[in-house]
């Protein structure tokens, strides 16, 4: 039942597209995998795309917020993209604010933002 989320490398960035509903174990495994991949590839930027995700609960939000802070500790900037209207509404109603997090509407804009942030 436990599936790993693929992490793709593109130049000095890592790309992740979350394609299915996350259970707790998959989310925690992803946290570890991403940090190892940053270490392995010396990636400076990460884009995590949520276009296919139709809800995020407080646990997933916590894991996500944590992995963004952890990546930052390792010198990588993270942009999250593709948050659906329903997900944005429920996260805020639930009382979760990912305020320090860089976001963009879609993957393309996320990569552009990241390139600007990384200054190249």
């Amino acid at each position, binding site marked *: 039942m436990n599936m790993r989320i693929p992490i793709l490398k593109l130049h000095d960035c890592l790309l992740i597209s979350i394609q299915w509903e996350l259970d707790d174990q998959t989310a925690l495994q992803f946290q570890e995998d991403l940090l190892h991949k940053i270490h392995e590839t010396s990636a400076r930027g990460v884009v995590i795309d949520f276009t296919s995700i139709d809800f995020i609960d*407080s646990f997933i939000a916590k894991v996500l917020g944590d992995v963004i802070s952890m990546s930052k500790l390792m010198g990588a900037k993270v942009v999250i993209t593709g948050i659906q209207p329903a997900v944005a509404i429920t996260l805020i109603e*639930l*009382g979760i604010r990912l305020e320090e997090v860089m976001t963009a509407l879609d993957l393309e804009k996320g990569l552009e933002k990241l390139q600007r942030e990384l200054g190249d």
Partner: protein
Amino acid sequence: MDSSVKIINEWDIVAARQLGRNVAKELGFGTVDQARITTAISELARNIYLYAGQGEITIEKVENGAKKGMTIISRDQGPGIPDLRKVMEDGFSTSGGLGAGLPGVKRLMDEFSIESEPGKGTLIQSVKWLR
């Protein structure tokens, strides 16, 4: 038409919210309300898993005159909640983590009630009406 999911492990949290989402879809809830309902169930099921060890999520379709909706019932025989007023405050969490908890669930749903007796367990009922 009522259905329940026993919450014993983390996979049951996934099963409960999938059941809820399917019923919400069937009843004709829009995508935003489907997300609200799915998220509320996920929070309630996780509370059971974290604090009570085990319990049950029951989904019921409800009708009140012309109004249609669904009820989420979360029931456990866990330790109960000693100070209900406190857990309904935003930002209060005994697990030292999430802080969203029950006030968040209340905001996502249209109706919300909670009964809890220390040593006996907790019963939470919440309703979302179709608009």
